[in-house]
């Protein structure tokens, strides 16, 4: 029974949040903070897979999010809404209730395909040279979308919001919150299963010693390809959710600053610690929201806090450990390896 405690507790907590927002106990601001928190959790957990577990230095995660956001909103507009761009909806609005995961999957698949551009050079090179490739891919994605005038170019794209209202017309529930929570819990569960599987042990092996891993019959190129695709695909899912939460995407909001945010969350939580990156995503979002009244001084204070944190705890909040390693009593309830 104790072993399943987490599997019961987390969905219960998610359901509790949904019930609260349905009853109106959480106002819209709190709801949006929770949703951004969940999106940041996906971003930081998926980047942690590459930067922490595989030991590469990818600093263009915002680019994949951008691909996901655009593909997700275009799919959603094509399938479920009457838009100027695609004309009448292909499917009736109520089918979004069941088929919305299709949009997320499509966004994830498109972002994973872009991830291949980064994964293939990583066969030959690593470290800072790979960092530059991810950075260049981020710039290229943004620049390409800015040049596609059909989907709005630099002005951005709107019109994916009606998908959500179509769902709410059928069953009056806070669907956005439900999908975002499903996305976040699903992504974290996927990453956890991937890392703790026998196949996923290869990811840590590549991090620690690539040559030794190869000798021990780990197919390093395939591990890199799959890991990059999983990571960028999940970033794409986060992007699609973000687009539906905000109801508006423009390429400028996925630039280096977004990638920097994701990197900060990973290194704040500790490299290679999944629970650390989830925790730091939650804390980082809360910190940003708490300091919002300071306006521009927020962006002076937040980096300062992070620098001080790095000075006093240079390995991040959790280091390389997971939650049960820090608090052994939790081991009764859930394990990681």
């Amino acid at each position: 029974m104790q072993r399943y405690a987490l599997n019961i507790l987390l969905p219960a907590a998610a359901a509790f949040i949904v019930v609260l927002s349905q009853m109106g106990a959480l106002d819209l601001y709190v709801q949006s903070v929770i949703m951004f928190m969940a999106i940041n959790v996906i971003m930081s957990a998926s980047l942690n897979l590459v930067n922490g577990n595989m030991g590469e230095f990818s600093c263009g995660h915002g680019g994949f999010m951008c691909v996901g956001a655009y593909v997700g909103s275009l799919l959603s507009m094509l399938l479920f809404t009457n838009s100027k761009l695609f004309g009448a909806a292909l499917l009736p609005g109520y089918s979004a209730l069941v088929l919305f995961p299709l949009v997320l999957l499509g966004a994830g698949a498109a972002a994973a395909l872009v991830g291949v551009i980064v994964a293939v050079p990583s066969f030959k090179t690593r470290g800072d040279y790979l960092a530059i490739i991810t950075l260049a891919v981020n710039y290229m994605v943004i620049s390409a979308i800015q040049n596609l005038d059909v989907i709005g170019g630099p002005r951005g794209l709107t019109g994916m919001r009606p998908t959500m209202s179509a769902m709410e017309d059928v069953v009056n529930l806070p669907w956005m919150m439900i999908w975002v929570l499903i996305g976040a819990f699903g992504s974290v569960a996927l990453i956890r299963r991937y890392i703790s599987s026998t196949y996923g042990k290869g990811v840590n092996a590549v991090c620690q010693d690539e040559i030794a891993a190869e000798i021990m019959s780990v197919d390093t190129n395939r591990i890199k390809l799959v890991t990059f695709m999983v990571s960028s695909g999940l970033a794409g899912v986060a992007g699609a959710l973000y687009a539906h939460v905000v109801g508006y995407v423009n390429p400028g909001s996925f630039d280096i600053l977004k990638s920097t945010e994701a990197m900060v969350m990973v290194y704040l939580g500790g490299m290679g610690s999944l629970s650390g990156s989830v925790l730091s995503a939650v804390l980082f979002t809360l910190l940003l929201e708490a300091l919002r009244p300071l306006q521009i001084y927020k962006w002076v204070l937040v980096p300062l806090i992070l620098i001080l944190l790095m000075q006093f705890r240079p390995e991040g909040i959790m280091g390389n450990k997971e939650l049960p390693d820090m608090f052994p009593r939790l081991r009764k309830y859930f394990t990681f390896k």
Partner: protein
Amino acid sequence: MEFVFQNILNALQWGSFYALIALGYTLVYGVLLLINFAHGDIFMVGAYIAYFVATLFLATVGLSPSATLTLAVPLTMILTACVGVTLERVAYRPLRRKGAHRLYVVITALMCGLILENGNLALLGASRKNFPELLEKTVYNFMGLSVTNLKVVVIFTAIAVFLLLQFIVTRTKIGMAMRGIAWDKFAIPLMGIPVDTIIVFTFVLGSGMAGLAGLLFAMSYPVLEPYMGALIGWKAFIAAVVGGIGDIRGAFVGGFLLAFLEIGVAAVFPSTLRDLIAFTVLLLIMWRKPTGIFGVAKHQKI
């Protein structure tokens, strides 16, 4: 024909800026294996320092523009170098002492860059600053080409800086120490070489050149804003890596290559495609030569 040469001149000028900034990345990386992401913002701070120095001497003290320029060049370089060294002392060195993972220092550098950018925005406000004219503009007409004296100054400064740094790194004792730290940072202190002094010297060189670039940039494009260093800094970093990071020649070749690509694309295609095509070409170069043009692949011992 004139069109082509005019664009080549523009590309040489832009390439000089990229090269001067890329130098700072390459010098610090060559010694510490640290990507100093704050460097683009140090360039921005350099431009602002140049602005304050120039307005101080021009308006408050009342010197002539040429006298101001001769004073502003060394002062800007020294003050910007102080900013770079302060960052090293306050943020990077304590982390290095604690033996933190290299990437945590990189993140700290990113945060320092954000503080410089937004601190500037918070302190000085979002209004753009107009840089005073220090060098009287003369246009040389040369076989139908018009060249301003400023362009000539920028290009020749970049070449002079390249020769100077190449000399320092390859021919002097301190340069030998810098290369030595890059080679083996555990053996170097045993040879009696003061590692911290060498690192500070590297930061002085890199940040000083960023200050010089800031001054020249402000003279060429006299509108200053807090985020001017971010994009040009990232691009200069990309240029440094494509050239082969850790190599002075690489920074120069990469900087000029990026500038030629950008100006060439903007001359032929619509200028909105500039980033897309330039970065695609750079990506293809990285696919072919993963360690950059001058970079040497390090073989791992088994």
